[in-house]
């Protein structure tokens, strides 16, 4: 199954003309880009708003990280076109993010235990 997926990714695009049409049709329109930017600006305002609300630190951190994740994903998916581009590109980027997250999470935990 894995091998089939890998082969499919490495194979030349079967019908580039069709992909071109598909690509052009599936990318958001300028109006949709503006809509996405408004959502991103609203989330930013929400982040700053909850920063000033008195609440337990753990809840605040969870909410802030959740909102940042949504913003990050929306920019990557729509502005960077990861949602519409090939799986290979998605995997390259996600691999980098996951690798960084795992390596530095382990490093932070270890250093915190050793020197915390």
């Amino acid at each position, binding site marked *: 199954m894995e091998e089939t997926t890998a082969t499919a*990714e*490495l*194979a*030349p*695009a*079967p019908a*580039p*003309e069709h*992909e*071109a*049409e598909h*690509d*052009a049709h599936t*990318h958001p*329109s*300028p109006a949709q*880009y*503006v809509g*996405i*930017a408004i959502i*991103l*600006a609203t989330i*930013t305002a929400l*982040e*700053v708003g909850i*920063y000033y609300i008195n609440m337990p*630190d753990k809840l*605040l*951190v969870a909410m*802030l*990280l959740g*909102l*940042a994740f949504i*913003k*990050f994903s929306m*920019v*990557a998916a*729509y*502005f*960077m*076109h990861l949602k519409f*581009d*090939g799986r*290979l*590109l998605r995997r*390259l*980027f996600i*691999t*980098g*993010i996951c*690798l*960084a*997250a795992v*390596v*530095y999470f382990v*490093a*932070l935990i270890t*250093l*915190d235990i050793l020197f915390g």
Partner: protein
Amino acid sequence: MQTALPAPGTHAPAPGDHDYAATGIDARKVGMWAFLGSECLFFGALISSYLLYRTRAPQGVKVPHDVYDIPYTSVSSFVLLMSSLTMVLALAAIQRGDHRRLRIWLLATALLGTVFIGGQVYEFTAFTHEGLNLSTSVAASSFFVLTGFHGMHVTVGILWLLSLVGMSLRGQIPSEKSLNVEIAGLYWHFVDVVWIVIFTVVYLVPSNH
């Protein structure tokens, strides 16, 4: 009209066509994504260092959290976020073959980036007046190195955008070469997503000092 143009970043390899890998995706685009993946590790190291050291300062010495101006930084973040919108509108313009709008949106993106950098310079100056500089403490060093490297990336992005405007004025970016703009856009959006993380983790997440 649209279908006569090559698909941006997607193409079947042809004999002698060295820009396209066996994946059917332009090698420059794959290369940029691989570079961005490696940049995740680079910024991950800097963010982790900040998280580890953010409270480490001698007794009575300020840490970055003591001098943050959240409303001010929020406006800077908003400016950078909006620059991602103008960048993607520039790409949409060149894909439509609208060169005038391409230049307008690229200049708008560069301008917003410059406003962000100006804001960062002002912030650094204000922090210095508050007694916080690169050598004040480990906490201050990790903050300035992280945000300074991000600012350097934004500056490189601005220069890249301005060079694209110059190329467009000389007619060197026809619609078929919209990938040049797309790759610059990927870099610019990446700088934006890194700031999304920095703004939350460095500025908003509370520090127990």
